[in-house]
């Protein structure tokens, strides 16, 4: 594994990717109305039971007011730092970025999320925006939840089937 990593990592770095962390940003995306907050993040890809360092940076075009953040973790992701679950920043024109650092780990491989619910309050109503930071543990396989059963209709079309609440009334003679 170490030899493979030693060979692959430089190649991935050359390709612009880093095998050891996941990065992302909301800058430049087409987004629905909401709190004027952008987020960039870096979360270290680790193995199960190892600690992943997660660095989150929030930024806003707002020059005053309060920015509050509620952090929640996926059930199987454990917080390993003393980061509070509710954080409040006073927004000023001088401060461009608002950092949040935390350490997490999980016992099982998987793709987990740290969810952020952010709010900007300028004293005349507030707006919200939600984000989710992915944390990859081990193989990092996505565990998808299915709200319905997927099958194929006779015509070959893929359908996602849910049972309806049904009432049947026979019109008696």
């Amino acid at each position, binding site marked *: 594994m170490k030899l493979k990593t030693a060979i692959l990592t430089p190649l991935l770095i050359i390709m612009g990717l880093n095998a050891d962390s996941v990065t992302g940003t909301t800058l430049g995306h087409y987004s629905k109305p909401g709190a*004027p907050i952008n987020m960039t993040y870096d979360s270290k890809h680790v193995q199960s039971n190892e600690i992943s360092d997660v660095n989150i940076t929030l930024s806003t075009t707002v020059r005053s007011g309060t920015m509050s953040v509620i952090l929640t973790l996926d059930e199987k992701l454990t917080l390993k730092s003393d980061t509070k679950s509710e954080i409040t920043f006073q927004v000023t024109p001088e401060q461009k970025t608002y950092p949040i650092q935390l350490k997490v780990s999980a016992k099982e491989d998987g793709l987990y999320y740290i969810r952020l619910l952010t709010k900007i309050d300028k004293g005349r109503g507030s707006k919200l925006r939600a984000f989710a930071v992915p944390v990859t543990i081990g193989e990092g396989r996505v565990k998808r939840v299915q709200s*319905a059963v997927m099958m194929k209709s006779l015509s070959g079309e893929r359908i996602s089937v849910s049972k309806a609440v049904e009432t049947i009334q026979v019109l008696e003679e």
Partner: protein
Amino acid sequence: MTNRLSLLTLLFFLFYGCDNSNSTTSSDSNTTRITGKILYERINPLHSDSSSLLNRNNITPEPSSGIIVEAIDSDGATLASTTTNNQGEYTFGQLPRNTSLKIRAYAKIFKANQWEVKVIDNTNSNSIYVIEGSLTNSGESNSIRNLTASASNRSSGPFAILASVYKAMNLVYKVDNSVKLPKLLINWSVNNIPSDGSLSDGQIGTSFFNGLNNIYILGDQNSDTDEFDNHVVIHEWGHFLEKTLSRADNIGGQHGEGDNLDIRVAFGEGFGNAFSAIVTDDPIYFDTYGRAGQSGWNMNIEETEHVNPGWSSEASVQRILYDLYDNHDDGADKLTFGFKPLYEVLTKEQKSAKAFTSIFSFISELKNRNSTKSNEIDAIVSSEDIATITDIYGSNRDNNLQSGTLPIYEQITIGESLNLCTTNFYGSPNKVNNHKYVRLAIPSSDIYTIRVAKSHGSIADFNFELFNTTPFQSQFLAEGQGDESRDLSLSKGEYLLDIYNVQYSSRACFDVSIN
């Protein structure tokens, strides 16, 4: 007497007939009739000042209108297919008797030669959502089978989304019954989460329209799910409408009330917000968040406090558009256009405007079409601190923004050089002064050299995009490293240059020339 009685009896059956919807047997002795309703459960919002949440004590069954319904036998074969009416009702007049069959409703609306919209699960092989009843014997008597998509198992989500889109499409259909829309896929999944990455894993970032024929809607109920936030869904469909029937030069990006936005973004986002209020006839735009939608915010499209009003404000654009539409006279608003006049400008003059789509291009053409209402239109525009709009380029602006903002469109002639500057004073990458627009008129077809060279600013790399204005389309994009110089074969006509610094540094200047 007997003859009269016979005649009366005959008349009775002629009028009250045999094919009555309440009759218990079908007129064909081998078939039976099944009717019913397709409903979905909508969780309605609860608003309190500027906060909103999904109120699970206010769940209402709503009709699923215009959707495809099929009768399916035990082998999965389709016995019959129909479409629900506006009340969600369907009828299968002649199904085989004594046959095990079920009713299936698709999250799909279809009108031949006009539109097709499907709600699919982008995290499950793009499968289309359906709800089904049980396989039950059709018997010999007519029957009623009603199906409801439940909110508790989240099966109502796709149908709630479709209902919002159907409402929007019907508004367009009412003013333009020959409208033809391209096929649209709406991607929704309980896995759709506000994280970037793989769309098929649900990492969609936010609810958005992809600029082509896909809308993505959030569904992760532990962070943000939008299936019941009908203004959000309709806002995104509004982008689809603008892109397909009109023209949207909106460059996208983060935006919010109070921002000084690029004029293209201000119009595109303001239109989406106003359109959602127009379709629902409800000016309260809301978006719920958090676990099970127990947090959220709202804004009154019409009455939100004026924060930073002006031509770069999406909130000003939405208020202007909604005031032009509504029948509620308030303040400077003395007009009630309804939707049709706005739709006509959008799909005609706005589509072919020789300037970027903005409040300037829209209002100047609305005034041209409705010259007897110019004063009233000007009054509504003026109430948003926007000086009278006289042309599509926003000429004659009052300069209440950063120095160097005006004019909005510069002009350049052959052989001339202009020095202009971009800034990130209002943020980036889609704010005022991130992009500079330059008009140029080409006198005759020839090869021309367009050059953009940095003149000031250590952190700067300028790109440019050249647009032909007739028809309006991007002609060339210069996005190399460093200064840009391109020899281009250009026909006689009017062109627009969009020049921007990809580093979006605080201030950087450039020389632009054409020879």
